[in-house]
């Protein structure tokens, strides 16, 4: 499945797990985008297409009847995933297609509207403060592992009403599915089973011991057209929140701190002009978009001259779209007060990230709290920063010194 030879031609043989690409994918994305073949193809990792231009990626996102979401992971599912007790559990609404997609999504959207997620701001700020308390005296920290990684998992656990003290286990399961598991089918399947087994237990517990109010209880009590929703749907939403809500936002926080550690002028700008924070958050999301999703081609079609067949996988490289010079002036420059920014870090079309308002809140609070308490910091050893990539790209080890 995985040819050991290094990639020679990125337009016909790209490797999303190539170490150099994971560390810095932008030069290869640029080369593909500006080549005569801006929709690249590879046979590696089960085979896929990878458009790199903004307009192409947005067009595919909007053409959801041809480019379906029946599987959204960047590599094919491991054998055995469609069998066993949780065979019917997906990750709605991200894995749903119309017409079910409509109610799958509409049921959870109010939970994630800006006015609804605002209630998590104070708790997130207190969490960030506690994390900083734990390392500020040391004069240095791992901005990825000690800080960024610790935040979204606790916010999501709070929302779901599951034990916060299991945060490290949740993180390990999610990495097992979305990071290590992408290139190791056994790990991916094992961790999927751990996640679904855990939520099965949570559902059973709430049925035996009803709780007044938490998200899982609310989901179990949700009716559509007069009927309670299925437990597979509830399990699927929980699965999505854990898997999609943790290392995505953690990666965005980590990449942003990695950037700020190297740009004193941007640290000063945020101190001197705090009113630009909302715009700055959008720019950091654009420049360091963590997430690549996949689509499955429903029926044979031609896209930009490429013969795509039913069942083919298309990688939606939102990071590549967001660096397209056809859409963004000076796309490789981070301009914190960028005036026009139609970025698609959260995707586009009907599958726009349902948790985007929560992710933004966490990113803003995490960065603001850090900058208030640690306004000056730098990378200890830039070459030692490690990155994860593939589906979600961000730093996993990022030591910084407070100066």
């Amino acid at each position, binding site marked *: 499945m995985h040819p050991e030879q290094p990639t020679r031609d990125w337009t016909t043989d790209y490797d999303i797990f190539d170490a150099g690409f994971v560390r810095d994918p932008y030069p290869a994305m640029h080369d593909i985008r500006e080549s005569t073949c801006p929709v690249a193809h590879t046979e590696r990792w089960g085979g896929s297409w990878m458009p790199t231009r903004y307009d192409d990626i947005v067009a595919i996102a909007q053409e959801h009847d041809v480019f379906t979401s029946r599987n959204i992971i960047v590599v094919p599912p491991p054998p055995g995933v469609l069998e066993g007790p949780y065979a019917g559990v997906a990750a709605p609404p991200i894995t749903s297609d119309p017409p079910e997609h409509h109610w799958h999504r509409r049921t959870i959207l109010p939970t994630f509207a800006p*006015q609804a997620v605002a209630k998590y701001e104070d708790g997130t700020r207190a969490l960030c403060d506690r994390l900083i308390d734990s390392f500020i005296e040391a004069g240095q920290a791992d901005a990825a592992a000690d800080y960024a990684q610790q935040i979204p998992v606790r916010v999501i656990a709070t929302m779901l009403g599951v034990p916060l003290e299991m945060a490290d286990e949740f993180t390990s399961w999610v990495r097992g599915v979305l990071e290590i598991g992408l290139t190791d089918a056994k790990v991916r399947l094992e961790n999927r089973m751990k996640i679904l087994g855990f939520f099965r237990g949570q559902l059973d517990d709430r049925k035996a011991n009803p709780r007044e109010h938490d998200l899982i209880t609310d989901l179990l009590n949700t009716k559509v057209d007069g009927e309670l929703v299925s437990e597979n749907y509830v399990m699927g939403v929980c699965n999505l929140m854990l898997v999609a809500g943790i290392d995505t936002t953690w990666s965005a926080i980590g990449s942003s701190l990695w950037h700020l550690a190297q740009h004193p002028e941007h640290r000063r700008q945020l101190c001197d002009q705090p009113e630009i924070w909302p715009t700055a958050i959008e720019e950091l999301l654009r420049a360091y978009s963590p997430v690549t999703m996949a689509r499955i081609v429903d029926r044979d079609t031609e896209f930009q001259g490429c013969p795509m067949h039913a069942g083919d996988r298309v990688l939606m490289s939102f990071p590549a779209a967001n660096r397209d010079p056809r859409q963004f002036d000076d796309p490789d420059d981070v301009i914190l007060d960028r005036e026009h920014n*139609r970025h698609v870090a959260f995707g586009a079309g009907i599958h726009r990230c349902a948790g*985007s308002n929560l992710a933004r809140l966490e990113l803003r609070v995490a960065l603001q709290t850090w900058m208030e308490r640690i306004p000056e910091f730098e990378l200890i050893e830039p070459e030692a920063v490690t990155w994860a990539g593939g589906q979600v790209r961000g730093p996993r080890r990022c030591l910084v010194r407070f100066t």
Partner: protein
Amino acid sequence: MRARVDADKCHGHQSCAIASPEVFGSDLYGNAVVLLDPVPAHLEASARRAAANCPERAISIQEEA
């Protein structure tokens, strides 16, 4: 000036409300709504900026009220 959101195109990015929080807001589902119609003169630039930040190109601006 009047601003309009095409409800079929809006998918709730909320980019407009970030660019122009006085003119744009969110409904129960997080989709965009116009809060000020017509748009007051001092917020016209802000509303144009919101339109230019929408990834779905769902916002249209009618310059004359």
